[in-house]
């Protein structure tokens, strides 16, 4: 039987990807950011998950305005890094787990989640930066990845509660898969940031740290936080944080916090990161 072993959450700031790709990780600006992932790199080298269900949002890369899915699951054999305007990131092609992805899709659709099936989808920094943060710069990514893209760009995004419930449905799906697989669920994006208008540069440490507390210890309550609170308090792009709730919904009610990291800034954004294991 497949099982969900752990959850990881992390910001997916594009400038972090650029710092890695351009060899700037030792620059004073970046040292404290990457220091926050040292524990996690060792941890995941020991964990050796078979598959990661990687929850992220597409940033107008795979999805134009022609078709905007609320939830899209990648069922392809592989996913290429997107060209976001400066050429694709020089990272390995992401290999999927088509059979498990199809199984999850089947299970959660029959569980009343109205997924979009993606059989061809380029993946942008939202998916590849978290991989780089945890795995560094390998020739091949050391495990398979099932991309789960969530719309947080075109209003309205799914509610935090809906995301949390989807996480629970993904857990049921994984646990009904016959093969013996260790599966992690990652939730990415956030923390507080705003990339537009006169309020650009907003950072809310208090909000972010309360969020980090509650997603570990009070996910049920946190999942009821309304959309407007995210935008008002964590910035227009802070709404990405709802994706962390999918990760959290896939874990036990009680989890062990193995690692927690918070840092300001990376470019325009507060960086947050958690490593959680089922208690």
């Amino acid at each position: 039987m497949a099982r969900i072993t752990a959850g990881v959450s992390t910001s997916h700031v594009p400038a972090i990807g650029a710092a890695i790709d351009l060899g700037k990780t030792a620059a004073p600006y970046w040292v404290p950011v990457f220091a926050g992932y040292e524990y996690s790199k060792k941890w995941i080298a020991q964990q050796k998950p078979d598959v990661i269900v990687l929850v992220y949002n597409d940033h107008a890369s795979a999805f134009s305005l022609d078709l905007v899915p609320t939830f899209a699951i990648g069922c392809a054999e592989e996913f290429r890094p997107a060209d976001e305007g400066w050429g694709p990131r020089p990272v390995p092609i992401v290999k999927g787990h088509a059979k498990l992805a199809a199984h999850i899709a089947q299970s959660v659709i029959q569980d009343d989640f109205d997924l979009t099936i993606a059989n061809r989808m380029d993946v942008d920094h939202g998916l590849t930066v978290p991989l780089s943060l945890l795995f560094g710069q390998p020739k091949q990514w050391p495990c398979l990845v099932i991309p789960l893209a969530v719309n947080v760009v075109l209003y309205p995004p799914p509610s935090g509660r809906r995301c949390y419930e989807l996480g629970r449905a993904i857990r049921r799906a994984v646990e009904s898969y016959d093969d013996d697989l260790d599966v992690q669920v990652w939730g990415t994006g956030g923390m507080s940031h705003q990339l537009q208008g006169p309020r650009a540069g907003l950072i809310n440490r208090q909000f972010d740290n309360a969020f980090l507390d509650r997603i570990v210890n009070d996910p049920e309550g946190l999942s009821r936080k309304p959309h407007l609170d995210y935008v008002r308090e964590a910035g227009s792009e802070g709404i990405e944080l709802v994706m962390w709730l999918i990760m959290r919904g896939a874990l036990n009610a009680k989890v062990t916090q193995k690692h927690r990291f918070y840092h300001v800034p990376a470019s325009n954004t507060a960086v947050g990161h958690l490593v959680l294991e089922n208690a």
Partner: protein
Amino acid sequence: MALKKPYSNIPGTTIFDADQARRGYHLNQFCMSLMKPENRERFKADERACLDEWPMSEEQKQAVLKRDYNRMIELGGNIYFLAKIFSTDGLSFQHAAASMTGMSQEAYAQMMLSGGRAPEHEQEKQ
């Protein structure tokens, strides 16, 4: 209007909703075209000619030519689409964000290093 907009009073913030998406459809789809290197080259070679291939309003085209991101957002642009423009220019999200605040890039970068824009200050304005 029938669409409720509980988010319309957040200071300095435009929510990319259906109305904005309709207004900015061609502007944003133009931005997507810059995901191909050949289109980036064509745009760099003759911005105006490239823009004229799209059924955008003159205001939208002027905003692109001037790299006025606040105006592009007002006219229906979304920052993740518009990112293809400043990426084509070889510029970062931080550059674009700074330009929207009216601060110099240096002052903005320093604000971020000092912990970013404080939310309390912003919330007073509501």
